[in-house]
């Protein structure tokens, strides 16, 4: 029987009853693979990631992460489960009152009884893995956007999590940082044998490193498969997204009842 890191079954979620963000989502992510959740802005990708990390609970359906159904767990149990997960936030979310060293060492000092000298060595190793050895004493304000993201990656890897989640890891990066980040994600995934979930709309980079893709639109999964399957799909929404076409089923315009010409007084 295949072992799954994440199982989402018929999950729905909305911040209010009349505006569902996720509608009847079901997915299964096997252990050790890299999965991308793709789709346009506002389609519910980040909300789905929050559901998997236990930050929010579905109004309907169930979410099982690392063999534990988090929908039935208390906040305390979810906190315990999170020690086995890592998450990279879109803008790093480094603690601004702590140095790079303190940021990376945060989980180690909170959840382990390791000696200071051991923590120092682990922090150096994690920073070296993201190419930032020697920045221990810098404050987050002294780092560029790409460097902050890499420090955040080192921090989220500190406890060698079994499940790693990346929220828009490639947004706002220059081409070099972008390639380095993609390479790092792939390298760390292989080295640690962890399961990785990437929420992204960067087609080129993610197609290179992921094993499987879920494509979302309007809170639903509309297509899934390997990068080749998704590239060759006939689904018009996916095709429009991949090809970056302005016209298509995915509307660029905000849905409104107002008529633009009438609004401007043009008959």
């Amino acid at each position, binding site marked *: 029987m295949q072992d799954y890191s994440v199982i989402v079954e018929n999950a729905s979620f909305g911040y209010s009853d009349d505006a569902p963000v996720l509608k009847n989502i079901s997915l299964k992510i096997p252990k050790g693979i890299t999965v991308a959740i793709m789709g346009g802005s506002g389609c519910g990708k980040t909300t789905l990631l929050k559901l998997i990390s236990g930050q929010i609970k579905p109004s309907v359906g169930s979410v099982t992460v690392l063999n534990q159904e988090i929908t039935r767990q208390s906040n305390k149990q979810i*906190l315990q489960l*999170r020690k086995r997960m890592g*998450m990279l*936030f879109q803008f790093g*979310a480094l*603690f601004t009152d702590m140095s790079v060293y303190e940021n990376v060492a*945060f*989980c180690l000092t909170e959840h382990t009884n390791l000696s200071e000298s051991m923590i120092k060595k682990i922090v150096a190793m994690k920073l070296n893995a993201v190419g930032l050895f020697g920045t221990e004493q810098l404050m987050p304000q002294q780092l560029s956007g790409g460097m902050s993201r890499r420090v955040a990656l080192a921090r989220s890897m500190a406890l060698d999590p079994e499940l790693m989640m990346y929220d828009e890891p490639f947004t706002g990066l220059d081409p070099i940082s972008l390639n380095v980040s993609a390479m790092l994600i792939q390298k760390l995934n292989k080295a640690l044998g962890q399961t990785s979930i990437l929420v992204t709309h960067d087609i080129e980079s993610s197609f290179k490193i992921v094993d499987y893709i879920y494509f979302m639109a309007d809170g639903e999964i509309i297509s899934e498969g390997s990068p080749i399957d998704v590239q060759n799909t006939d689904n018009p929404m996916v095709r429009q997204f991949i090809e970056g076409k302005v016209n298509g089923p995915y509307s660029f315009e905000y849905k409104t009842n107002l008529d633009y010409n009438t609004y401007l007084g043009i008959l």
Partner: protein
Amino acid sequence: MQKLINYLVALGNPFAGFILHLGGVFNLFLEILSSIAYPLKKPALIIKEIYFSGVRSLVIIAISGWFVGMVLGLQGYNTLQRFGSVSMIGSLVALSLLRELGPVLTAILFASRAGSGITAEIGLMKATEQLDAMSVMAVSPIKRIVAPKFIGGIISVPILTCLFNTSGIFGGYFVSVLLLKLDNGIFWSQMSDSIALHEDIFNGIIKSFIFGIAVTLIAVYQGFIAKPTADGVSSATTRTVVSSALVVLALDFILTAWMF
């Protein structure tokens, strides 16, 4: 009929909002109490908060206390002179400060100086996903961020109140003895005769302790419910100062009626 219903709803909404906030503050207070062991095991976190909210407020508290004491000395001298009771000025300055002005003004100044800072810090941490990041790393922000700030606040406010009172008494001394030439011995002896250790000093410190709890709780709560935008954080810091001032004044009335 519909108009009447709408009117009643409009009337009830702010009240319902107030009750919800009260419930939210109480819930947060219970959560903080259940997390209190964590910062006690890591005293460095508490010391850092005492430094940021307490030590950095020393100057404003000392200067404000000094001026309030001087005003009390000046007003007291002018009024008491009419009744031939200028000798009572030391008692007037000390009692006004120890019982009322010290605890109340210190708490309001603390809310403006440190409370608003606490709200802004937590609000910005929320806006920049730092609180979410902490939660995802299996560390409760209530334990790691809020509880140390809470303890730091309730330790700082009574100490700052003592400083305010001391500075105020010297302000009163400066005006009445050094400027208006009241006898030095009369100033101090009248003061020591009229002050009761338990009734005046201890009760004043108990008041400041309770104000410290209220102000710090409001500050952390407002930070937590702040909208994660620049405007949201700005509004939250304003609400902290306004709510703290009103709550401190209301609590002062209740405590004064109970204590004295």
